[in-house]
């Protein structure tokens, strides 16, 4: 992990009257991170992003991006940030090309026709560049949103729920693009999402917030490796398998059984170890299926479970 902090947030709080949207939040995003910012709807994710992008003013707290205060170095910092805040909205009466030209010029980007067309090609919109954005589907607007966020080649990309409303293929394309930007282009990515699976697939570090308060923060691997998941093992000899388990330390992990399946509560590392153990004992394992999804972990955390 690179130790250079790109985003540093301390004690960030936002109150709307008596409602506390974000409460004393600390955040650390390092250069090269794909940082997952997780939380259920209404957790304060968008409010936090809006504060990071100076769209709303915090009630209290300190925010630094690239080591500098946002309020004092806004122009310098924002020239190095590309962002999508909630759903990407554009000037609907203008073409995709014109929208990118206008937003690119405001960001000081190269707005030559080649550059804009290259960016539209990257997000698969080059054939519709002349069409007015009002004729675009939600998915196309999302992709155009990515294009406007990337046009000026920013160092930090802030994406607020970038796959919302996309079909599975569209979600995969966006995820692949994020991975490409991170691994090939070295961008730092701040990804807000309420889908743990999405964050697990692409993020290196994450924080989970609920009701405006941070619940857990760390690398995705660290946070999930100790988390126990219910896993079903499909085996050929169920009775032998049960006996073998009962005679071993895995007895403690046993949960239930059915016709040809045994359910265990295991950590990620333990799944492979148990699989190896059963095979060594001559029991053929035909499938290992996680039953309790990672969403359960997410729900437990966000519903006030243990840290």
């Amino acid at each position, binding site marked *: 992990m690179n130790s250079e902090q790109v985003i540093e947030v301390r004690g960030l709080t936002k109150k709307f009257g008596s409602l506390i949207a974000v409460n004393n939040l600390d955040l650390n995003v390092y250069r090269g991170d794909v940082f997952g910012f997780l939380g259920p709807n209404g957790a304060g994710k968008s409010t936090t992003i809006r504060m990071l992008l100076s769209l709303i003013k915090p009630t209290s707290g300190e925010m630094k991006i690239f080591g500098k205060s946002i309020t004092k170095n806004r122009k310098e910092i924002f020239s190095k940030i590309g962002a999508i805040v909630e759903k990407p909205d554009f000037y609907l*009466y203008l073409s995709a090309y014109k929208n990118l030209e206008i937003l690119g010029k*405001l*960001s000081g980007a190269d707005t030559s026709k080649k550059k804009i067309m290259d960016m539209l090609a990257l997000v698969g919109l080059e054939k519709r560049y002349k069409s007015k954005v009002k004729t675009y589907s939600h998915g196309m607007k999302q992709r155009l949103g990515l294009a406007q966020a990337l046009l000026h080649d920013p160092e930090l990309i802030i994406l607020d729920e970038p796959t919302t409303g996309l079909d599975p293929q569209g979600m995969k394309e966006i995820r692949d693009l994020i991975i490409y930007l991170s691994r090939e282009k070295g961008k730092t990515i701040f990804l807000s999402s309420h889908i743990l699976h999405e964050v697990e697939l692409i993020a290196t570090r994450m924080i989970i917030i609920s009701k405006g308060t941070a619940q857990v923060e760390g690398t995705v691997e660290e946070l999930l490796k100790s988390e126990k998941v219910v896993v079903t093992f499909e085996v050929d000899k169920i009775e032998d398998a049960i006996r073998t388990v009962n005679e071993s330390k895995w007895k403690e992990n046993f949960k239930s059984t059915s016709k040809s399946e045994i359910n265990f509560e295991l950590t990620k590392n333990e799944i492979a170890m148990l699989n190896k153990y059963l095979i060594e004992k001559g029991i053929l394992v035909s499938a290992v299926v996680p039953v309790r999804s990672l969403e359960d972990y997410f729900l437990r955390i966000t519903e006030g479970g243990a840290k």
Partner: protein
Amino acid sequence: MITLIWLELQKMFRKWRTYIGFIAIGFLAILVQVVLYFAGTKMIDFQMRGMEQSFVMVGNLFNGYFIARFILMALIINIPFLIVLVGGDLLAGEATAGTYRMLLTRPVSRLQVVTAKFIAGWISVLLLLVWLLLLSLVVSLLLFGSGPLLSFQGMRLIIFAENDILWRFLCAYLFAFISMSTVISISIFFSSFVQNAIGPIAATMAVLIIFLILSAIPVDFFQTIKPYLFTNHMSQWDGFFGDPVDYKEIFHSMWYLLAHIIVIYGITTYIFIKKDILS
């Protein structure tokens, strides 16, 4: 800053509503010219009745200058209702479309954004007035020819020589630009509060109508406050067609309107900089 203003103008002039004012003025100016072309001499004969026994009128009195002033007087009171269509949408339109989020996460300050909006609004007013000037003065001179300008001021008839007219029109239009800039500034001010352009358009029209009604009520109290209402100063453009021109009165009104513009711009900027963007 120039880029920002240019981008604002591009956005503005790619919207259909921006052309409503140009189309309305074009239609009305041409309609008035066509009607006057066929029936205008009767009108001027009617206005000159009673004077023909005392004076001998020579030359082309029903000329382009006379028509241009007639059109200016007829249309100038309606222009505020056309320009608020643009001004009311300048900030509220971004909120409606959700594009504030795109616009304000760029490396430009809010001060620059709101200043560019105001300047673009003032430029749109200027272009609308230039359009009116072209249609009313240039086209009228081409259609009706040149000549001295008859100007009726109450019971007085003033005749300006042909070489003493053009500067009066230019100054009148310049003053009208300041008047109309005040109106569009008010609509931008209202536009900074809301997320829909209808509100600021209606609010600006309401302010204009209320102030005009207050000015017209012949009650001491209203007549006392009348000099403080900006609407009372907006018609001073006509002072350039007086003889002698009352520059003191004109400059007083001009500074009054400019002060309004500066204060409105200042308040709007303050509100906009402090505003939380929740749209």
